[in-house]
């Protein structure tokens, strides 16, 4: 069996086209709580789109031109919606105990994506290039330096902050989200918890 055939076999075992782009769902997938993940994913799409425009035109444009300021506002509010949806998504998955039946890797990769998103948010605040950036740079450096992180990340180095925020971290997030989505679609939605109330009533 050659490499391509092996890869085909892996896909057949784990992720067919119907898994990747489902046309049917278990009937218990019937709640607004399932939309929070999609909400954070779509906010990420909005952030990448508005971020690409901001990166293309640069800081002077988004500070001083009305259109630039508006795109900057789209990015700013996109971050707020992204984290709001993400926190709701994480809370919903916690209260669903969504890690059951071997789904811890999905949980863990999602958590890692969240942690990287937090760092991306920090670099975003630093990349605003206004007083907020100055203040956060000098305030955040102490925690970073205390654990020795100052030797690899300097929040006052705009060159490093910009490249991290615009290139490196989005790639890492998109990669982690890709793995997260693969695991979600591979394993399918977790079954509902046993209905303890009904069990007690029938006892």
């Amino acid at each position, binding site marked *: 069996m050659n490499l391509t055939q092996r890869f085909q076999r892996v*896909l*057949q*075992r*784990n*992720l067919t086209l119907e*898994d990747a*782009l489902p*046309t049917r769902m*278990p*009937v*218990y997938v*019937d*709640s607004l709580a399932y939309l929070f993940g*999609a*909400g954070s*994913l*779509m*906010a990420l*799409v909005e952030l990448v789109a508005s971020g690409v425009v901001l990166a293309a035109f640069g800081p002077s444009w988004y*500070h001083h031109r009305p259109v630039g*300021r*508006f795109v900057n*506002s*789209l990015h*700013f*509010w*996109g971050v*707020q*919606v992204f*984290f709001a949806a993400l926190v709701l998504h994480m809370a919903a998955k916690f*209260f*669903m105990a969504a*890690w059951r*039946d071997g789904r*811890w890797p999905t*949980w863990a990769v999602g958590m890692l994506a969240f942690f990287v998103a*937090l760092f991306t948010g920090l670099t975003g605040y630093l990349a*605003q290039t*206004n*007083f907020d950036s100055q*203040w956060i740079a*000098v305030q955040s450096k102490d925690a970073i330096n*205390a*654990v*020795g992180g*100052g*030797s690899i990340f*300097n929040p*006052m*180095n*705009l*060159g490093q902050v910009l490249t991290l925020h615009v290139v490196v971290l989005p790639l890492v997030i998109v990669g982690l989200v890709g793995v997260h989505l693969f695991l979600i679609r*591979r394993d*399918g939605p977790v*079954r509902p*918890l046993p*209905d*303890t*109330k*009904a069990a007690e009533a029938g006892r």
Partner: protein
Amino acid sequence: MSARSERTLRGIPTKPYDLLLEGILVLALVMALVLVLAALFGSPDSPTVRARDVARLQPLAFVRTTARMLAGSSALSGYGPPYTHDPANAQRLLGVAPANWFGVTEPVAPARDLVLAPLERAAVLDPSLAAPLAAFRGATVAQQRAWARAYLGAVGKAEVSGARVVVPPGAYGPVPALMNGMLRLGRSGLLTGALEAGQRHPYALDLSRALLFFQGSVDHAVARSLNMTGNRWGISHETGPYPGAWWLWPYTFLYQVPPMASSPNGDLQVVLIVLVALVLLPLFLPFVPVLNRIPRWIPIYRWIWRSWYDRHR
């Protein structure tokens, strides 16, 4: 369906579903929400603190900040790694100081790099600075600091005369002349350039020195005026009436809690608590007894899957 899906969803009734339609609808909703918020509220953009503005508007704060560098009493003096060779001052916990493992990777000598080096550059254009600079360099470090401390003590009684700060007579050596030279450099708008001109790679975008210069009382005064010091929830405010990084509240809140609130090792303590309680614990929560049972005790899941439970009642 894949072999795995067949296994995991066996026996579960299904219903028609359109992934792409759902994605498009959610995207449209998110875009509409963001568009409305951006159109209604815009985004925060408080102007940067510039050396020129501080020198012109707050000359006493400017010279006080500068004199502290010479006196060795700035927040940067004796900071420890990664800026200065003061390993004893690195934050530590149980005798362990992680900052010392990596050493001084961003060396900054406050008096030399943030005051004397810019003044030497200014002296090329302003020859009156040459003699005070030579006098200051010719003195011992103890003498230099004594002059600067005496000057700092007198700044409270100083008067601003035009573009000069005039202190009452005292034993300040050449410090008043140096401070007024820095003030002129600051007012000219050339100080930031003079600070960054000394960095290792001149084409870099590293703004460390310019930012470190005003990190103390000047930045704090501006942050206070913008309600950004975060006395209750920590520093996660945005400038103006905008939501800040509220998702960092669990982290910034720790700075309000003893002993971190007042400990010189507070940053290290907070980071370690965050690493254990907010990173490792959530990551491995499914394996943590008690915590992994909480969802079963709080019946939010019953609301999420209510149609399923109704179906099987």
